[in-house]
């Protein structure tokens, strides 16, 4: 049973805000939510992590509702260079294989 569910793909025009939602209905009390970004021919790289409410950094914002059964990665004013695959992961601090489910991610294509 997949720990997370994301849309397979999304398209957006340059300059728009993009919101990618991830469902994690079975998230556990101790689980955190982490998003990674993968450009073509590169390994993934960390974008943002959160536990509840809202987290913002220089790259993105992460919105987590009170029930934590979903989360939304928000990319402000996307550019062509934001074209990538975005992965949502959930897991607790203990580590271990069950925390390492990347899935297929969401392929974001930014259109000029």
């Amino acid at each position: 049973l997949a720990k997370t569910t994301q849309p397979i793909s999304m398209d957006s025009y340059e300059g728009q805000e993009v919101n990618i939602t991830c469902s994690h209905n079975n998230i556990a009390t101790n689980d955190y939510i982490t998003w990674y970004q993968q450009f073509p021919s590169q390994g993934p790289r960390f974008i943002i992590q959160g536990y509840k409410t809202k987290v913002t950094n220089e790259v993105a914002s992460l919105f987590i509702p009170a029930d934590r059964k979903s989360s939304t990665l928000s990319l402000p004013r996307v550019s062509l260079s934001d074209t990538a695959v975005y992965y949502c992961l959930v897991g607790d601090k203990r580590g271990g294989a069950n925390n390492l489910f990347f899935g297929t991610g969401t392929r974001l294509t930014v259109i000029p």
Partner: protein
Amino acid sequence: GAGVSQSPSNKVTEKGKDVELRCDPISGHTALYWYRQRLGQGLEFLIYFQGNSAPDKSGLPSDRFSAERTGESVSTLTIQRTQQEDSAVYLCASSARLDFTDTQYFGPGTRLTVL
């Protein structure tokens, strides 16, 4: 080191041959991870190390796959008797601790092609 490095960057081999893929993690990182990514697909977790120990090998696709880590540093992923379905990019990552909240830093991957 500056980041996670992997070698070779590309490997072409014939079906039935053995291959060895190398990962050099960031110095001091306790945890090391191997993933496989087939063309156009997501990441498939293979195995992780805490120090030199791999507590869970259930993610390895078959008994042709093995991995080891020495000196809490370099790791090698070995695939014996390669098959065409082994063709993929093999990615290695490391993190400071075996803790989900610690960022995983990925290498550039090794692209394996089995003819």
